[in-house]
């Protein structure tokens, strides 16, 4: 909004008149467009009839309660999968971020005070470990989540591990999102002023202690908006459960459609449910971002950091893509 206001002057009487005229024309055109492109085709095919909408919006309909019971089951399953995936990817993502930082730290050490071949071996080992984690991160970040979930569901039984589909979905989502969260946290920790780490070293903290007590808490706070956007992504991706026939919202929707034959209506309801939840989550992220921007001491740090893309672009997918 701030930038928009700068693009044009505060309108004078003539400009206001013009804007009003343009607005009216735009509204008329939009209404006409909606009528001809949306209402007419829908009406012509009888998609607006109560036969199709009734089970979803009319409490008096015979199917109303059973349909919504099923939808409630779907919502519950979606939320369960999302919650499990969020918790596990946060936990694993944090561990991965710390691990990568520690390995990098280890790579810088010279290991003086060991006998001749040991330092070189240790340095090679740390370099190898660091390279392996790096490759894992790049691979899992570069693969589509659908493919990861599909591979988990197809691959695990191949090795004799058969689980509930819920767990395939959760594992697939975790593999991908843990890596993304690890990258978010890592960039948060590396973006902190060097003084933080140096001060911790001066008072005698080990690298692990520094990470745990100094860097990680600050990174969490700075990257909170990006993390919440990522949670929205997890919730959205839970809908991929339908490809491995986990009974989440979309799958339930498919079952309902199979009985009642009203795809458009059911998907409208599902879309509204998703939009409501995700929209409130992104509003929460915005609110947190604003709170972080004022007050808090870290605000000055956050301002000096190159703004985290996910936070500035406000595009949930921005971080994901990278």
């Amino acid at each position: 909004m701030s930038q928009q206001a700068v693009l044009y002057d505060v309108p004078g009487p003539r400009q206001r008149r013009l804007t009003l005229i343009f607005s009216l024309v735009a509204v008329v055109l939009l209404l006409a467009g909606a009528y001809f492109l949306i209402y007419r085709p829908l009406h012509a095919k009888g998609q607006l009839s109560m036969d199709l909408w009734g089970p979803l919006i009319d409490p008096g309909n015979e199917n109303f309660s059973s349909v919504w019971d099923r939808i409630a089951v779907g919502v519950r399953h979606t939320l369960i999968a999302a919650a499990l995936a969020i918790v596990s990817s946060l936990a694993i993502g944090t561990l991965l971020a710390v691990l990568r930082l520690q390995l990098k730290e280890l790579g810088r050490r010279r290991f003086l005070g060991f006998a001749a071949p040991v330092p070189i071996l240790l340095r090679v080992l740390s370099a190898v470990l660091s390279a392996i984690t790096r490759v894992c991160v790049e691979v899992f970040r570069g693969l589509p989540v659908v493919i990861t979930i599909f591979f988990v569901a197809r691959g695990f039984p191949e090795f004799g591990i058969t689980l509930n589909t819920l767990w395939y979905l959760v594992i697939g989502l975790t593999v991908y999102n843990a890596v993304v969260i690890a990258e978010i946290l890592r960039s948060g920790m590396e973006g902190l002023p060097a003084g933080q780490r140096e001060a911790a070293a001066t008072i005698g903290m080990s690298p692990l202690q520094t990470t745990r007590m100094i860097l990680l808490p600050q990174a969490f706070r700075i990257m909170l908006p990006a993390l919440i956007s990522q949670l929205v992504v997890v919730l959205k991706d839970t809908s991929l459960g339908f490809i491995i026939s986990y009974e989440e919202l979309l799958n339930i929707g498919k079952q309902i459609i199979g009985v009642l034959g009203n795809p458009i209506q059911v998907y409208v309801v599902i879309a509204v449910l998703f939009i409501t939840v995700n929209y409130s989550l992104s509003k929460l992220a915005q609110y947190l971002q604003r709170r972080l921007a004022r007050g808090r001491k870290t605000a000055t740090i956050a301002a000096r950091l190159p703004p985290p893309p996910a936070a500035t672009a406000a595009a949930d997918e921005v971080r994901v893509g990278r």
Partner: protein
Amino acid sequence: VSVLIDKFDVFAGGFWLTLQACVLAAIGALVLGAVVAVLRISPVPPLRAVGTAYVTVFRNMPLTVVMFFAAFGLPAIGSNADFLRIPLLDSLFTRLGTDLPYFRFALIALVLYTAAFVCEALRSGVNAVPAGQAEAARSLGLTFGQNLRYVVLPQSWKASVVPLGSVIIAMIKNSALMGFFGVVGDLSQTADQLTSAEGYAFIPVAIGISIGYLIMTVPLGAFLDRIERRQAMAR
């Protein structure tokens, strides 16, 4: 491992189809996203509301739902998305012109979904231009259009490149979904086909498919990282 060699043409074909879909969807999403972005910063309130509503709806809805709308909703109102059978284009991208509409449906869903993110990337670029620039332009008497064209957009472009690239990478990955919506022969459907129907060993197929996607996403990501680093230095 022999499946990688025996079925190389299948993998290559899957890669090629996915790439086609990505190129087409990227073009569509960039155009539509730019239109929505213009709507969102325009001085006419109803247009702004439409732009905002579009972004809110499509950003908060899973792509899966958009795909379902395209694949089941469009046929329900009797459309086969035939308007995408663009005469010259469909000889280059043959899938656009086939009688099976699923490729076109998947394309529509991808474009609609990605455009919302493209719009946000472009807008974040506009917001990254210091307010003083637009103010100075205005005080010189430039109109809204001139202001955008000569002052704001040339600068915002720089700030939008990296977010836009991220959106495109995400779109490439999202395109994997189309294999589960009736599109035959893209990378993800190839994975399904080879492992379940033709009974090839899982691991080699998984490796082949992964390589197919990584070829597209990893270099693009590395390239973006480089641009980002160079921009950070310039700043």
